[in-house]
């Protein structure tokens, strides 16, 4: 009996990517899971050791964890929600023909291609309570009578950082939706015109249904990215004042910076599980609606 010859070439071709994936994603993730069951605080090396579920119990009893989780929820809902709405509007505008459209399309990408650290620093100065340009504009237009310390008070700090992340993410949605819009056959709109459909009807009966998959995928990606985002908040407020802008990712970062790696790992595992649950629900919804 002749043995079947195994073709190794696919495995060889995929192996570099697989090795890199294992080294930079899988192993650190595995290490984080192991660390979450340990007292792993580098400031107290003599106490490093297995502690079972103590870290998990500790975070459930940590009011800052719950507060940060709530902030993460708001951060994602408002951040991604408004990014999507405004990105959609921008995509619709950029899909129309007008003079200088190419230039406008390029310029509108600037927030997306700017590094998060730079965005954080830039908006920090825009919001500055003493020298910020936003206060200056509001004062000149008579919108406010006194300067507002946007990032220095709890009531305004969180909305301020949310506005920044919205600004950063609009081009991503605009780009994705614009690509989707260009894939919709124009015949559908022509037929709708013949049937006498108005603009809203065309939007809700043709455009949005045809963009459904693009919207699902881009929103899911953005939810994960925004929930994990640290750079913008950290450079604007570092989570303050009084933890009012501390999302779970920022809390993880702060704890990691304080070298309490066990506790930070535990929180990051929790965040991963939450995002995984959101992703599963989301994808399940996509596939079930496709089956219908």
């Amino acid at each position: 009996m002749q043995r079947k010859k195994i073709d190794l070439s696919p495995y060889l071709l995929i192996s570099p990517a697989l090795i890199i994936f294992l080294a930079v994603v899988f192993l650190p993730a595995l290490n984080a899971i192991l660390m979450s069951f340990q007292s792993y605080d580098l400031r107290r090396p003599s106490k490093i050791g297995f502690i079972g579920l103590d870290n998990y119990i500790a975070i459930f009893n940590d009011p800052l964890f719950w507060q940060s989780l709530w902030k993460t929820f708001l951060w994602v809902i408002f951040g991604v929600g408004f990014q999507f709405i405004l990105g959609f509007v921008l995509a619709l505008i950029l899909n129309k023909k007008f003079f200088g459209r190419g230039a406008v399309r390029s310029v509108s990408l600037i927030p997306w291609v700017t590094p998060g650290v730079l965005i954080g620093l830039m908006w920090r100065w825009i919001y500055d309570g003493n020298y910020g340009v936003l206060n200056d504009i509001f004062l000149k237009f008579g919108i406010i009578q006194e300067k507002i310390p946007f990032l220095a008070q709890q009531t305004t700090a969180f909305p301020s950082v949310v506005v920044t992340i919205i600004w950063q993410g609009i081009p991503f949605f605009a780009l994705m939706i614009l690509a989707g819009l260009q894939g919709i056959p124009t015949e559908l709109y022509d037929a709708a015109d013949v049937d006498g459909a108005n603009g809203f009807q065309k939007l809700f009966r043709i455009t949005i249904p045809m963009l459904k998959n693009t919207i699902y995928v881009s929103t899911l990606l953005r939810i994960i990215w925004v929930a994990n985002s640290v750079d913008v908040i950290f450079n604007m407020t570092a989570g303050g004042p009084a933890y009012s802008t501390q999302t779970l990712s920022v809390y993880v970062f702060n704890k990691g910076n304080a070298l309490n790696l066990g506790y930070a790992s535990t929180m990051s595992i929790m965040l991963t599980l939450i995002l995984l649950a959101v992703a599963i629900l989301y994808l399940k919804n996509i596939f079930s609606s496709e089956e219908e």
Partner: protein
Amino acid sequence: MKKITLIFCVVFAVTLFMSSTGFSQNEPVTITHWYWADNPEYSATMQEIVKEFNATNDKNITVVAEEYPWDGGAYSETLFRVVMGGGGPDTSSFKLTSTPLFTANNLLANLDSFIENWEDKDEIEESLYDTMRLASGTDNIYLMPWNTQVLYVYYRPSMFDETGVSVPQTYSEFLEACEKLTRDTDGDGSIDVYGFGMRGSTGGHEPWGSFIWARGGNFSDFTTEEVVAGMQDFIDLFENGHAPPTATMDGFQEIIANFKSGKTAMTIHHIGSSPGMIETFGDDVNAFPFPKGVDQWTSMGDTENVMLESCGNKDAAFEWLAYLATGKGQEKWCTVTGNVPVSKTVQQLPVFQNNRFMKVSIEAAPSAGIFPVLDSTTEWISTIWPNTIAAALLGKTTASEAMQQLQKGLYVE
């Protein structure tokens, strides 16, 4: 043949003996040194010091200085990670507060024997060595003193004249001055000048400590009545509008910018800011030690140098650390940065004796101290203190509640 073999053996044995007993010290040695610099001028100064040391030392030592940003203290964390990972420099600039982290992981070289045999040992005050021992929590010295900065109050004499305020001699006079100096200068109904440039963000614990001690408190227990009273004074300054409304997020850059732009009349920092202050105001800037209330305390900022345990040539590394502590390196660095030298000889140089800010630093030095150096201190400084204080300033917690949180955060069980 036997003779040749014998000669060869003798030569070999002598060579082996010489190399093992340090006679090979003039072999070229490279020492890698890490440091941070607050501005390009300081950066250039360090490179000049290195160049001069490399050219003048007679032990064939070449120092390669690598600059990393201070980044609000992230420097220490970067150094820690690199050294833990098996890399890093031979020597590095350092802060006292990081000592427990490094010593707990056996990353610093013990300097006791080097200092004991060092001819310039007495050039540095014994009290500074004691502080280094205190920071390590042992009887050993792991840090080589380099320079210190004593916090004091900067003020604008012209603003004092305009409001009829004299330089405060007591803590209550200081609080009164904060109130009197807060003014609406253009009559538009809004405050233009705040009496006190409060630092509520990272690093603000140092000036804040002066309020605690002025009420008779200290850092061993944050829950005492005296400490709570000091905290209440701090809150009152903010709530009564004697400090900018941005204070909860104001760090070093902001308090200096506010003072230089005339938005605040007083602020607390050390001599390191004085060249910039003089450049902005000329003679219209001066300083006084934070005044005494029930007690008096100001923060002693510090910068030391350490030798890492992994350093391959500790004798050469100590030569370099000694040059920074008492040699030309000390003189040059302190002259440019305006920091207080640790070398007694350098302190006596005219450039330091004739400096009005140096005089205030020296005047404030007897009341200067440090925060408890514990393994929880760095997190307490970077995260717990600013957020707890912000909550109290913004009225989310009382002074008493805030102090209990700070106690729990620093003295972790």
